């Protein structure tokens, strides 16, 4: 009612609606205050650790700022961005990151779906499967990376021995394949569990009805299961994509970014901790942030992934 009067009275002197607005009921006002009070600590921590630093990073990225030359700090505008965007290292790192992301997410989606189907449909040992699947999820990424690293080291590793003592970590695309393999192994269970949750929402009756109508298992999967699971699939893929795009741990252990396997995160880290160049490091960080925002926007606007506000997704 009150909103109605307000819109009608929009042309009238501003006092009337302004006075009416704060006149919430006492209870509603207390509720609002309590809500803000309860959220305040969380908001303050998140702003302090992520909000302020990202602003600071933007400022840093506009400076010439090398820790080895502290006296030469100077505002240089967008020159750092120019330097990064002209550098072949950035474009190669971006290509490597996109390649790893696309391949690992695509394969993880397929394997995760298979895993979810096995967990959902298997006739026996369902508990054992779930238990086994949680192991790669729970394992520390770095610990698993060392396992893969030694497995592919010639003379030490069983995988290397199986492939004629090959040393895949010394050549760019073979090393990227090993990195992708390590990513897939680690993240398939997470994908599988998210998809399993979506799978359990597909009504059994619908499957049965389609079966009676003579639909094959393949048809039922594509015509019933996948369309009904689309929201769950999109959320899972979005989170996996963003997670994969910031890949760091596996590459850091497996190749340390050598032999042309640098991801954008590794490139930024090297600029910061090896070259001690805060300006360039910050510029790369901001560019990565922009990439992530673009990916999220494409998923949410383009594919209609459930909007974040609908508390659909989490990592």
């Amino acid at each position, binding site marked *: 009612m009150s909103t109605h009067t307000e819109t009608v009275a929009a042309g009238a002197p501003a006092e009337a609606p302004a006075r009416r607005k704060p006149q919430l009921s006492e209870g509603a006002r207390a509720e*609002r205050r*309590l809500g803000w009070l309860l*959220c305040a*600590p*969380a908001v303050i*921590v998140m702003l*302090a650790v*992520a909000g302020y*630093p*990202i602003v*600071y*990073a933007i400022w*840093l990225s506009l400076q010439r700022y090398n820790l080895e030359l502290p006296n030469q700090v100077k505002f240089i505008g967008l020159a750092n961005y120019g330097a990064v965007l002209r550098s072949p290292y950035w474009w190669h790192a971006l290509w490597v990151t996109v390649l790893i992301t696309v391949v690992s997410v695509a394969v993880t989606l397929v394997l995760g779906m298979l895993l979810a189907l*096995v967990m959902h*449909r*298997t*006739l*026996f040992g369902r508990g054992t*499967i779930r*238990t*086994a*699947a949680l192991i*790669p999820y*729970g*394992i*520390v990424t770095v*610990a*698993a990376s*060392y*396992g893969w690293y*030694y*497995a592919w080291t010639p003379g*030490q*590793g*069983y995988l*290397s*021995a199986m492939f004629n003592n090959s040393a895949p970590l010394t050549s760019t695309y073979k090393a990227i394949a090993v990195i992708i393999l390590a990513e897939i*192994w680690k993240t398939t*269970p997470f994908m599988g*569990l*998210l998809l399993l*949750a979506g799978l359990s*929402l597909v009504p059994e009756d619908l499957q*049965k009805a389609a079966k009676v109508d003579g639909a094959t298992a393949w048809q039922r999967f594509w015509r019933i299961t996948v369309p009904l699971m689309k929201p769950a699939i999109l*959320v899972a893929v979005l989170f996996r994509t963003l997670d994969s*795009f*910031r890949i*760091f*741990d596996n590459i850091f252990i497996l190749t340390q970014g050598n032999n042309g396997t640098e991801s*954008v*995160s590794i490139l930024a*880290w090297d600029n*910061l901790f090896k070259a001690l160049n805060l300006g360039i490091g*910050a510029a790369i*960080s901001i560019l990565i942030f922009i990439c992530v925002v673009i990916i999220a926007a494409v998923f949410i606007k383009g594919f209609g992934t459930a909007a974040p506000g*609908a*508390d*659909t*997704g*989490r990592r």
Partner: protein
Amino acid sequence: MAAVTTTPRQKIGWGTANVVVVALALIPVLWMVSLSFKTPAAVLDPSFIPAQWTWSNYHEILSTATFTRPLFNSIGIGLIATFISVVLASMAAYAVARLRFPGKSLLIGMSLLIAMFPIIALVTPLFSIERALGLFNTWPGLIIPYVAFGLPLGIYTLSAFFREIPWELEKAAKVDGATPFQAFVRVIAPLAAPGMVTTSILVFLACWNEFLMAISFTSTTAARTAPASLAYISGSSQFTVPTGPIAAAAVVITIPIIIFVLFFQRRIVAGLTSGAVKG
């Protein structure tokens, strides 16, 4: 439905699928365990099963502060960060699930943004800020960012759990003469506890696993966590490769988590999927 019409062929098919899944999940872990029991000489033999078994790698890493101190740091930092972020997240999640106030969707949007944040984008500025504030290479220097990154996970998981709680019970208890405090402690807290345990597990696992900030914001064993310490483990002499000790350390930080995960698996699965499915 399938149970009624099970054919031997189906049984074999699913059995094979099960075996494949279990084998794929376990082989890389068993390989690490095998490496950790190999003698320094046997490390240079690529066979999957050690020819000679030895505990020496474990003795070695557990007797040096290069690894034991980071292990202690990991436990301490993980527990403190988990505690703080679950307390703060429950407050916010209660507000999100139960109260009506403007700015709620802003809060949810903000925590989603942080959940998706490329951590590397914060490493540069936080490194600089922490050095200026004297937080670099200290426990708080890792606890504070871990709390911040635990919050989105906590808020999402907990608000999904809190929505399921039958809050009318609280009113009923008050009608029966309970004070608001009693109503909370006797009625609501026991119902909220499972969600909080689940969330704590997920946040702790995330802290335990974290690597990028752990190597960026520490420089000595004063605050370095266990995953970050693996790279600093050396062989018993400078002529031996540290493969065995590193594998042993990797097993030490992995096995407790695996036991933990298996013990709480129902809760973990519920927590991982709660935010993603329920709307």
